[in-house]
């Protein structure tokens, strides 16, 4: 919502483009698209760009004529930046977004603790970046517009879905009327109120929590670094919690809980939002001018589809799940969904995997959502305790946290961490011969590489677009395992990349042994990294034939067409 007299897209700082629907001949022949994506939000566009990065075309249908009306999701986590980098879209994000590592918590006006999110010299990206959602959509749209494999149609609503012999028969409605097209697969990235979900008669399952929250953006010259501030039980909102985030363009995000019994219709009246914002600004010591930009209301639900796949329809992002805002997982989880289904579907379409590969989408990504729910439920109880018992314990933890390190993790906002696909059908059982290092299913740990012959950079820069193998030093005098791995895995994945780490003829020098140490890898050890940077498996003694057989099975290659 915006102040009286301003339209949906009358922003103080962002010029919304207006996109026309595509021109279309009345007598145009019916087209077939192997992949249609409903929704050009961040999730739909990341899916489109992931498909394009893997060489597959798609058609994106967007009901609206412009980007999201407000800033909404503003926190981009490190792993999402890696995903954006792999689809060639990260540059403008690095240019514009505000990185941060620090959070501060206040209780009744007193700063009680400061926490740092995990970060170090081996990370290419910061733990978190703040950027308004419409910029996220703008930058992804720019990348999509530059990608020949992505076709985007604005003002084009997916109005009907019928199952057909070789896929789906879709009806699209735009200002010029309705037309039909055929699709092999449909990705439903059409948000929390997914029309696809409704058309398929599917319902999200889970809990609607009681707490409701207002998010409001203000523009003001406010001198405070990019640090997430959480105010527990502040004078301006007694018994509740207020969050304050900085965004680019002098925009500040306030996030506060509605008072008990307060109706959303009342809390979102402009005068009420202004009054509350003024009280919060007095609390944080801002005495200067401010302008109200935009606001919205949300509730902390934990809802998900039982199955993200419905035949040839795959649900992605908010269309598949709704998560509470604490922990900034709505956008980041959705982006990870999009990348996951993107590389898998691209591989199936390219004949490099069987359709069975898609069966891993729900267990991996719904598993991630359930993990988010568990963490978010804890965060929500801490941020907005639902009863006397939870409030007393929360206050005890805050009080202890002042002087005792052991209590500090309670106040940690449990920000987004990549999920480990430990139980995924795509994850190889761990090799017990490893005495440490990253577990199969987790995201491959990044490392800053030494300067010198390799030219520095990060391990993540060296990983290929498909599967990448890390073969650790001394792979035999004849290099036999390396050659056999490159040949056998290259047959399965045409863009397979083998990186020999350390030792003779290494692709990655590891003179000080840092990479081997981080991966707990003795000479001859092999890690297989998926296109999404998760570890598929690891073997202490690389046996090329066994590993190739495992990968072929994992990709359901026998069924590939």
């Amino acid at each position: 919502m915006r102040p009286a007299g301003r339209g949906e897209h009358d922003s103080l700082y962002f010029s919304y483009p207006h996109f026309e629907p595509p021109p279309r001949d009345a007598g145009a022949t019916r087209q077939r698209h192997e992949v249609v994506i409903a929704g050009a939000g961040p999730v739909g566009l990341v899916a489109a760009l992931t498909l394009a990065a893997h060489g597959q075309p798609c058609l994106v249908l967007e009901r609206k004529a412009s980007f999201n009306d407000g800033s909404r999701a503003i926190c981009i986590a490190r792993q999402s930046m890696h995903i954006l980098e792999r689809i060639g879209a990260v540059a403008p994000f690095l240019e514009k977004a505000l990185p941060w590592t620090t959070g501060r918590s206040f209780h009744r006006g007193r700063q009680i603790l400061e926490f740092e999110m995990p970060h170090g010299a081996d990370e290419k990206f910061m733990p978190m970046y703040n950027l308004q959602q419409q910029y996220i959509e703008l930058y992804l749209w720019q990348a999509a517009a530059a990608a020949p494999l992505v076709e985007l149609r604005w003002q084009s609503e997916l109005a009907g879905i019928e199952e057909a012999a070789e896929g789906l028969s879709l009806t699209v409605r735009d200002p010029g009327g309705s037309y039909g097209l055929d699709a092999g697969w449909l990705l439903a990235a059409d948000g929390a109120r997914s029309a696809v979900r409704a058309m398929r008669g599917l319902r999200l399952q889970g809990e609607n929590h009681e707490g409701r929250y207002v998010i409001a953006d203000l523009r003001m010259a406010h001198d405070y670094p990019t640090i997430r501030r959480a105010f527990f039980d502040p004078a301006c909102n007694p018994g509740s919690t207020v969050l304050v985030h900085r965004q680019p363009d002098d925009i500040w995000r306030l996030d506060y809980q509605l008072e008990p019994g307060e109706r959303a219709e009342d809390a979102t009246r402009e005068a009420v939002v202004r009054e509350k914002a003024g009280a919060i600004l007095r609390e944080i010591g801002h005495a200067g001018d401010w302008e109200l930009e935009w606001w919205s209301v949300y509730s902390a639900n934990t809802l998900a589809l039982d199955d993200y796949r419905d035949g040839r329809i795959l649900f992605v992002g908010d269309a598949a799940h709704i998560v509470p805002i604490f922990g900034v997982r709505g956008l980041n989880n959705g982006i990870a969904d999009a990348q996951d289904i993107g590389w898998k579907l691209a591989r199936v379409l390219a004949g490099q995997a069987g359709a069975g590969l898609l069966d891993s989408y729900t267990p991996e990504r719904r598993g991630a959502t359930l993990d988010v729910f568990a963490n978010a439920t804890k965060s929500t109880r801490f941020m907005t305790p639902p009863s006397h018992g939870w409030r007393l314990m929360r206050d005890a933890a805050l009080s202890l946290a002042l002087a005792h390190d052991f209590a500090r993790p309670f106040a940690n906002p449990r920000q987004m961490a990549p999920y480990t696909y430990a139980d995924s059908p795509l994850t190889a059982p761990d090799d017990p011969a490893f005495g440490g290092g990253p577990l199969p299913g987790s995201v491959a740990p990044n490392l800053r590489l030494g300067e010198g012959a390799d030219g520095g950079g990060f391990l993540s820069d060296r990983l290929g677009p498909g599967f990448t193998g890390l073969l650790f030093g001394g792979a035999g005098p004849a290099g036999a395992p390396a050659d056999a791995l490159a040949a056998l895995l290259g047959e399965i994945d045409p863009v397979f990349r083998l990186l020999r780490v350390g030792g003779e003829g290494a692709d990655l020098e590891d003179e000080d042994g840092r990479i081997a140490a981080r991966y707990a890898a003795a000479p001859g050890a092999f890690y297989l990294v998926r296109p999404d940077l998760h570890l598929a498996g690891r073997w202490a003694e690389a046996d090329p034939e066994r590993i190739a057989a495992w990968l072929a099975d994992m990709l359901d290659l026998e069924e590939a067409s």
Partner: protein
Amino acid sequence: MPLPFADMEEVYEALAVGIDKVGTADAPLFLAKLALMLAHELGDREAALAAIEACQADLVRDAAG
């Protein structure tokens, strides 16, 4: 041997549920009994007295009025 955080979380949650179960009026009595029983189990007079001292600090509710 201090409890790992995952176990502390379980204790935290059991306490929150326990306080709600006995009700606001009986919560202080419940928590005082709990403190005595934990001190008994701890078997360390010095540690118990030090914890009693430490927990009187930073009572934010009082400090902030």
